[in-house]
């Protein structure tokens, strides 16, 4: 009764995740304890495992931050996946040509990625503002266009003429990010992601702009009548959200893959959205939800290898958790009214 909500929700979520996974392991014919043990080892059990978890968390944490910014302003940006792809494509296009000091070149690549992400959401934002087209629909459709465009780019304009596969030219090695610690693949990109989440939390909670964004999200009609530039603020939230997802795509190319290929994102944007819903649109809580999902992803490979439980089963967990949280919130909402 008196347990605070911010302790209760994550604890319940973690418990629900473990119960779900254990049940799935039983269904797959393995011992639930063995499966969970393998999962823990694969995500936290070694330097390599920790590195893998952090590496995977980068994109999820950043897209989750983007989702938080949108949700808090009353904007439903489901297109983080597409904006991630746009950012990755921009980084892959600009990267091979980038020269000069690595720091400047990297900054230029990431700037291009963020800009591409923001631009990719723009059609949806304008359609919503001018024509009342629901952004839920337009952003999902832009995801499909982005995925198809990536396929076209790696076979056409961006194709590496030297390679056999449909993929873009590689970034110069000098630009690639160094591992953060030896024995693991994680790079400084993960620090950028968590820093972005922290800065966003501060922006929303403690700045004049954040207060305005929240007002627009909580009561659009009042915000307009009070004299807030609601259209501009929503556009800003769209663009900021897209830029964060684009940055995630850029960091993926810069830190992990070094180039663009097809298919590229594999659901990072959707997982980020799930993390933001689990974190109740609070950027820091959502970042940790994203870290948790990344650990599940990293550990599930080990689980499959050691116990034969399909890694795909672990991918069910985010969905189950989000449904559980939404159901709990709907109940709480009904009681509170």
């Amino acid at each position, binding site marked *: 009764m008196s347990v605070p909500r911010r302790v209760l929700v994550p604890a319940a979520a973690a418990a629900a995740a473990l119960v779900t996974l254990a049940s799935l392991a039983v269904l797959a014919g393995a011992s639930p304890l063995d499966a969970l043990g393998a999962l823990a080892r694969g995500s936290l059990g070694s330097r390599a495992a920790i590195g893998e978890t952090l590496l995977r968390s980068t994109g999820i944490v950043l897209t989750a931050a983007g989702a938080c910014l949108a949700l808090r302003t009353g904007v439903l940006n489901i297109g983080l996946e597409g904006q991630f792809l746009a950012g990755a494509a921009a980084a892959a296009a600009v990267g091979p040509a980038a020269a000069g000091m690595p720091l400047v070149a990297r900054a230029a690549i990431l700037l291009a990625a963020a800009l591409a992400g923001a631009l990719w959401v723009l059609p949806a934002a304008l359609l919503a503002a001018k024509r009342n087209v629901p952004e839920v629909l337009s952003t999902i459709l832009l995801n499909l266009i982005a995925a198809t465009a990536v396929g076209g780019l790696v076979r056409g304009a961006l194709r590496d003429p030297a390679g056999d596969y449909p993929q873009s030219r590689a970034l110069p090695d000098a630009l690639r990010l160094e591992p953060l610690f030896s024995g693991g693949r994680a790079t400084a990109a993960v620090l950028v992601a968590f820093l972005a989440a922290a800065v966003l939390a*501060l922006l929303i909670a*403690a*700045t*004049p702009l*954040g*207060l*305005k964004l*929240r*007002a627009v999200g*909580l*009561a659009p*009609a*009042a*915000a*307009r*009548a*009070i*004299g*807030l*530039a609601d259209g501009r603020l929503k556009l800003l939230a769209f663009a900021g959200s897209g830029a964060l997802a684009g940055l995630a795509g850029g960091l993926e190319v810069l830190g992990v893959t070094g180039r663009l290929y097809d298919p590229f994102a594999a659901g990072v944007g959707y997982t980020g959205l799930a993390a933001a819903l689990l974190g109740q649109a609070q950027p820091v809580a959502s970042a940790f939800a994203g870290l948790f999902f990344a650990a599940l992803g990293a550990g599930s490979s080990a689980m499959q290898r050691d116990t034969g439980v399909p890694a795909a089963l672990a991918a069910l967990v985010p969905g189950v958790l989000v449904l559980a949280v939404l159901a709990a919130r709907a109940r709480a909402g009904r009681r509170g009214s």
Partner: protein
Amino acid sequence: MSGVSGHGSSGSEGSPSTQPSRKSPTPALELRRVSKSFGETRALSEANLFVLPGEIHALLGENGAGKSTLVSIAAGRLAADSGEIFRAGVGVRFARARDARDAGLALVPQHDLLVGAASVADNLALLDRNAPLVESARARRARVARLAETFGLDLGRADDRVDTLPVGTRQRIEIAGALAGEPDVLILDEPTAVLSPDETAALFAALRKQADAGAAIVLITHRLAEVFAGADRLTLLARGSTVKQCLISETAAAEIGGLLIAGSGTEDKEKEKIFLEGEESGEPAEGRRGVTRGPDATRPSQNAARSAAESTDKNLEVRNFRPAGTPPKQELLSFSLSPGDLLVLLAIDGNGADAIASAVAGLTPFTGEVRVGGDALPSSGDPLAFRAAGGAFVPADRREEGLVLDLDLAENLALPDPPGRFLLDRAAMQTRALERIVAFAVRAPSPSTRAGALSGGNQQKLVLARELARSPRLVVAIHPTRGLDLAASAAVRARLAEACAAGASALVVTSDPDEAFDYRGGVRVVTRGALSAAVAGGTPPAALGRLMAGLGA
């Protein structure tokens, strides 16, 4: 007003006024020592209410006294923290609204809960608890005509979408839907606030018919005249407790009026202060009452401190103006307000007064020309341009448009331009909020209370505190006292008068003819989008009613 004069016809003979005794019939509904808190705010403490079959019972109290909370508990929409509920002498506990409805108890809420995108016929089919599971469109349309006829209420056309209808019509649909179920206990939360005098009389006639058929009617209202014309008994709440229960026939209106305004202990001093400020800032009441001079007439500012150059500027100029969405044949309007002018647009809902005010405030598009302080506003409707020109706006719906209910008081008061360069200047926000909470007598535990936790009257004071702090040139206020008690209404009017005395102008919309002249400004009646000439203060109510109904003076 046949039904209105029939009080005392049943249920009131010889029944004691404070406790249901052996002699009186069993109360249809009784609430005993009911308490309820919302967080830190105690809405009800051991409140009592009993209602007899066949009576119209008025539930009175200032804003925040707990009237809405009490009836919400009676109707199963809220759970009481403690206390008992008896339905026809039997103890009951409603887990949800449907249980109460099935027990023959219907509540018409203050803010309608209709489905905006559905038609009148469909909404009434949803509200009617006797409606069959499957029903033809023709039967649903027939219900609209039948209910309109039976209860004498104008419900609009059966196929109209509800969200295109004025709020008064929507309220009547909600009332008709409740009456359709022939409830034993019918509770109406401020049903007459949006009705015209004729409609009010018709409603009371319909209610009296239900009461004569044995139903118990509970009516929340702020209009004492109605209570004394149409009700049998009353219960007065103050600060969450029952302070008086009595028969109307044995009570003087003045006594209840006094109790209502006096309200409750600790706020008295603040109220006194507001009244005093109101008197000081405006002219003496009689001096401006009955001004026949139109608002177009320029007159020197009341405030000697203002410079001559400023006082000759118009704060508002409207020329060849028509709000968008009105019929093209509608008359084009031209009027202007000089510093110190206050113009009241008096109209029955649905006559376009709200539309005029909303368009002036930049919320909706218009054709023609609107200038605030000399600046022309874009005809596409731009609230920001309105504000940049020195406009302030008090919307009709304070919950939807006036406040962000999930933000706290300090945050609401800080909008639209929160202080701070990089980070919010919380200290400045707190100081500013405390200052305004005191200055505008907002009753709230602290600046960090959610705006949604305040009562309606205090929410309205909060809106005014934010809007008037900007020292506006023009205040546009739509039904600024709707749903407020006498003290809060007087405070709102005093604040507007104060702003005008300081050189601002005000455009106020109201549908209450009794109140229109209390603003001490010019009054014009709006009928079907057209403005009347200025109305004199002494105009008899009957003539005013004819004017508002569009029948000529």
